């Protein structure tokens, strides 16, 4: 049973560019959440997707957007990249309804470096 998979694992961009990160949730999971983890800090919640809609959002600007597809996979898009966007981006999947205990299953992350 594959867990949460993310791609790419590493990427380098320059300021002003755009980036797309991808995530496939654990089998049987229907929610996907994205987190930004800057060096030496805890993960910060960006947003959560369920039923192909953004359900909750953290304190991130509109440059951060996302999408969830019918197969529950998800993309995170960041436009007009800033140096401060350099971080490890983590995807986490979970379940809704009666199976929802709040437990999240994390991927290994995508490390973005902005030069």
């Amino acid at each position, binding site marked *: 049973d594959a867990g949460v998979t993310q791609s790419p694992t590493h990427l380098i961009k320059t300021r002003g560019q755009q980036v797309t990160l991808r995530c496939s949730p654990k089998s049987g999971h229907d929610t996907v*959440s994205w*987190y930004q983890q800057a060096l030496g800090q*805890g*993960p910060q*919640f960006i947003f959560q997707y369920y039923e192909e809609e953004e359900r909750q959002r953290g304190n991130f600007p509109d440059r951060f957007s996302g999408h969830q597809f019918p197969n529950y996979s998800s993309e995170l898009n960041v436009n007009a990249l800033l140096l401060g966007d350099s971080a490890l981006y983590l995807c986490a999947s979970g379940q809704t309804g009666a199976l929802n205990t709040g*437990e999240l299953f994390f991927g290994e992350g995508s490390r973005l470096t902005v030069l």
Partner: protein
Amino acid sequence: AQSVTQLDSHVSVSEGTPVLLRCNYSSSYSPSLFWYVQHPNKGLQLLLKYTSAATLVKGINGFEAEFKKSETSFHLTKPSAHMSDAAEYFCVVSGAGKSTFGDGTTLTVKP
């Protein structure tokens, strides 16, 4: 609203001695609480979770945590540290579909 405070940013212990990582939380809901571990350049792995069942929760690798509602605490313990326990540990509170992380505690294990 919910928040998590990990009281120690760094903890250093000798191999074979007990580990205590402290976490206090606040939540407007009946929260679920979690401890995750993150090894360098890796994703997060669940150690244990509290979801309103037994207040003493046992997790993987010999870790356990006790939920104390009166103290709003969920401290992580292990009787005997191993070198492989060296990592970053995160306490997480979850409620109303949102998970909030603490800033993390770096555990160093000395030989």
